[in-house]
């Protein structure tokens, strides 16, 4: 049973990490545009830096 002394805190810690990650995502606005997020998958983002784009344009 002593194993519980480690397991329970570990389980809780992992759960809290997940919760914290979710709340962080929420706070940083990642749930603000769910429709857009679903569509953005389809964009070919070639990671053009704004400066490259300017010279190209």
């Amino acid at each position: 049973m002593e194993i519980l002394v480690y397991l329970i805190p570990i389980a809780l810690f992992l759960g809290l990490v997940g919760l914290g990650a979710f709340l962080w995502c929420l706070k940083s606005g990642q749930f603000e545009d769910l429709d857009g997020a679903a569509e953005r998958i389809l964009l070919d983002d070639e990671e053009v830096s704004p400066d490259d784009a300017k010279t190209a344009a």
Partner: protein
Amino acid sequence: MNVVKPAINISPPVDAGGADCCDAGALASFTTAATGPNPVDESTLALRDPSTFVMAAGDGQSSLNLLVENLHCAACIGKIEGRLNATPGVVQSRVNMSTRRLNVTWRDGEADPAELMRAVQALGYPVTPFDPSELAGVENREGKRLLSAMAVAGFAAANVMLLSVSVWSGHAGGMGEGTRTLFHWISALIALPAVVYAGQPFFKSALAALRSGGLNMDVPISLAVVLAAGMSLYQTIEGAEHAYFDASVSLLFFLLIGRYLDHRARAKARSAATHLLGLQARAATVVDNDGCQHAVRIADIEKGMTVLVAAGERIPVDGTVIDGRSDVDTQLLSGETLPKLAVPGERVFAGTLNLTAPLRISTSALADATLLSEIVKLMELAEQGRARYVRLADRVARYYAPTVHILSAATFAGWLVFTDAGWQASLMAAIAVLIITCPCALGLAVPAVQVVASSRLLRAGVLVKAADALERLSDIDTVVFDKTGTLTLGHPELIGGTYDTAQLSLAAALAQHSRHPLSKALCAAAPASDGAISDVREEPGYGLEGMHDGRRLRLGSGAWCGVDGPAGDQDGTEICFAIDGKRVAVFRFEDTLRPDAREVIAELAKMGLGIELLSGDTPHAVAHAASALGIDAWKAGCLPADKTARLEELARDGRRVLMVGDGLNDAPSLVSAHVSMSPASAADVSQTAADLLFQGARLGPVVTAIRVARSSTRLVKQNFALAFAYNTIAVPLAVAGLATPLVAAVAMSSSSIVVTLNALRLRWIG
């Protein structure tokens, strides 16, 4: 502005991702067609001068928020962001698809906001600057609040449940008392803060209800959660066998899921309301006495000011034309297909579109006294009439909450009186009743069906805006249609006349230079038009003139072409084409019906619904459409008040009416009808007023929506029945004190799952 209760966000059906969905060509002409008798001075575009909306973003950067129209798919996002990010000076641009907003940030002085707006506009997406402080995202914060509460409740429920399962199996396997109490203490440490945090949405609403002397669903929920947590803490301190922490947090978790689904379904569309506000927050170009032009917020316009309206702009306020001659498209206001001529002395109204030439207008009414705002007031009136409708869930809640309280109080009293178990066990039984009857399944019954129904309708091109729209749609017995833009496509098409192909293509080459609806129809009907036309000028109200190979071409009314006689019938849907003063061709136009309008009307009649047609158009045009569609009951020349009057008459006869319309003139009747639908091409105000929106050229979604509404209401009722059936089994167990935490947890979860699965059936049944 509380009329804008529902919300809009046109998300197109998923399969609309093709090229045509992003065909914004019609709007491209907004910016490129600056040919007319008075070439539009670039400065007159200052109506869209965004300077009043630019905000300092810090670090020497400025940003501008824009409402974007026509956003449909990933390609739209890519096009807009790509174009803006490629503009020198722009730091960042971000399109929000859910709210149809665009935020651009640039380094001060390196980019011109008006230029950026023109760039997006040229891609075919009309933009309107807005002030984000006016549209502060209340609903957004609320959604975030619910989501984080749900996350915390979910985390707590999962962990407490793990511990509880250990305890339950321990009961059978001989877990030591010390271990059990330890587990209870750990559960308490997780559950109590979680209850305090995640229960707030319910506690607040319950407190508000109690303060106003009433009861709502949140009262028994809050009571059960707080009592269960408190009692469990007491049991834990005592080292007793049972604790109800798992029940209180998982109850919160399930209910928060329901509440969040409900919230999302509504918030999704609320941005239409913000669109209406955005429409009003626009700036107008005011001309000073000394001739200077500057942008002024519409709210700041005073009576008697001179406002300049460029060709292609919406007229911002009601007023009288003092200078200029142009065609004004009043379709959204009156339902008439053809533009009206505006000359000095003529009255023009806010919300109409100035088509062919710049106008100077002396304002006669302030922003809150325009025809547009009168329509909004009519809508408010109609809205009050509708508020009597009570949602099924609320009706159920009205009886449910008192019943639950009485039942649980009776259980407590019964145990005290008839047993010698003591107050603790009596209270536990009462709490068990509260928890078991807690409207967990009830809380999910409506949102679950609604989310499935909305997503199914979304695929069919219908957006559900009002929360109770489906319920209301399911019990209609009459459908009233508007004509222009609803049964018809709202733009004329070439249907005949006397001409040959060469004449058509030459006429179309000339017509290219105009924004007049008939010119557009001519261009659309012509094969690739050839021939360079020079010296084009447009005479508003008459027609176009141009030179080709040294010959003078004229396109327009008979008088314009120098021919006498009936060059156009009374509806003005004929135009002549003359070369060197001699009439060579006549083109006849008609507003075409939506391709499946006939079938849809027949289908609705087969469903046993009464059908009527109310239009603001001329009797001739309405009679023609009605006979083509087989509608017997029709009325032409209706003003907004006529339409609402007719709807009230129907309501007095006990009819429940679905109103389908698109114009500004339909907005009040859309609100006063039992339930309403608009095409997605409708005026903003109408979109805001309507309960449902449908996309595309076909009318079929109306039938689909009625079908889905009927089956979803059936499913909601089934869900309520399931929830009640579960209660009739579980409540006696709880009253008898047999509901241990395990039984309660299993019963509650299984009822929620059954209800959710039942809702999912809507995907398959018609």
